[in-house]
């Protein structure tokens, strides 16, 4: 095998490993944490191995210094990956949701996701999303250009907006039942009106 064949083969295998790792990392918070941890361990082990080579054999050379820098970069990116994975896992709202997507949905897809998470609750035809943050859901669902104050001035902090694709959404930080609420109206594919309560879990 020539030097160029050897370099090409390693570049190809590195690309495949990187691609697979990226895919795993992008799929879910736990993927990012696993890949990040792997990066830190491999980089750390190679850093120690390179130091040993420098002490016993080569001394400081351009090659070993480059290898050390690559190891440091690998460890840093691995650490960032772990942090991002933990952040994404915490943002998913549950200790059990290690497999929820990292990239949050927005607009109509977010409404569909919130609706799927909701369950029948207290109140006539009211759905509940226990433990979730109503305001965060509102901002994920509403068209950012359309957001304004709630029409009722007695609801400070209340918001209204438009759902991309049709319909309106309202956020009320408090209601008569003490639960924050989201109201949606005239959203295609949904009944004319649905109320979601967000009680504590």
């Amino acid at each position, binding site marked *: 095998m020539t030097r160029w064949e050897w370099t090409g083969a390693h570049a190809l295998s590195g690309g495949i490993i990187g691609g697979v790792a990226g895919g795993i990392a992008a799929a879910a918070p736990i993927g990012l944490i696993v890949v990040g941890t792997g990066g830190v361990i491999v980089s750390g082990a190679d850093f120690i191995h390179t130091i040993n080579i420098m002490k016993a054999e080569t001394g400081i050379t351009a090659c070993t210094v480059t290898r050390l820098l690559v190891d440091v970069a690998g460890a840093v990116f691995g650490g960032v990956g772990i942090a991002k994975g933990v952040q994404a896992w915490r943002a998913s709202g549950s200790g059990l949701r290690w497999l929820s997507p990292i990239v949050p949905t927005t607009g109509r897809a977010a409404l569909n996701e919130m609706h799927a998470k909701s369950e029948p609750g*207290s109140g006539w035809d009211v759905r509940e999303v226990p433990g979730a943050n109503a305001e965060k859901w509102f901002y994920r669902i509403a068209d950012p250009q359309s957001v304004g104050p*709630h*029409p009722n*001035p*007695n609801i400070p902090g209340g918001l*209204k907006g438009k759902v991309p694709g049709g319909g309106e959404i309202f956020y009320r930080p408090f209601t008569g*039942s*003490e639960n924050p609420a989201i109201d949606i109206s005239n959203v295609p594919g949904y009944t004319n009106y649905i109320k979601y309560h967000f*009680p504590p879990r």
Partner: protein
Amino acid sequence: MESYTEIEFRKNMDPIFRAIFTGGSAYDAPFQPGIQPRLLLYGFHWYLHEPWLEPVVRTLKELGEEGFYVSALYRPKPEEQTQPYHWFVPLSEAASYGAVVVSQENAIYSVNSQWGIICSDEDHALVGGSELLVENIKNAVGDLDYRLSEFFKAWKDYHRRNKVDITWIPPMLSHVYGPEKAAQLLRQAQLDWLLHGEE
């Protein structure tokens, strides 16, 4: 559907509103003394929808009223209003006006000061006035008793889970049904402790 400014409301609609309502909400005693009989409607979301829509529209036709007024109960100062808060809804649009009041407690009321409906933000409404309207609603909605029991169930649950103050229920019920029937309903719902003030 026609919308009105606050100035137009004060000039033309407010005297009618005040002939029906005391200015309160669905959480207290909103009707003037002469607005009788009364009924609590549960499963009422902001605007006229089934099963309430049909008996209301039918009654208005029988009363010869061509539409009704709708007013949001809580409004910014007139100079700060950026949208309408009062409307006249012709009967032909009774099934489709709802989007303008979603998420806002509001009153639906007779142009002839005969009747009114006031809705809460938690799925109940109170109707008062026009014997014909109340009778038509009773006849059209066969599960009113079940709905009332669900109303109590929901508020007991809110009280248990969120420590919500529900002491407004007895005076509101008394305003709607009279003190005797209100006490009876509270006993049936195992909420008679509200009458004595201690749980």
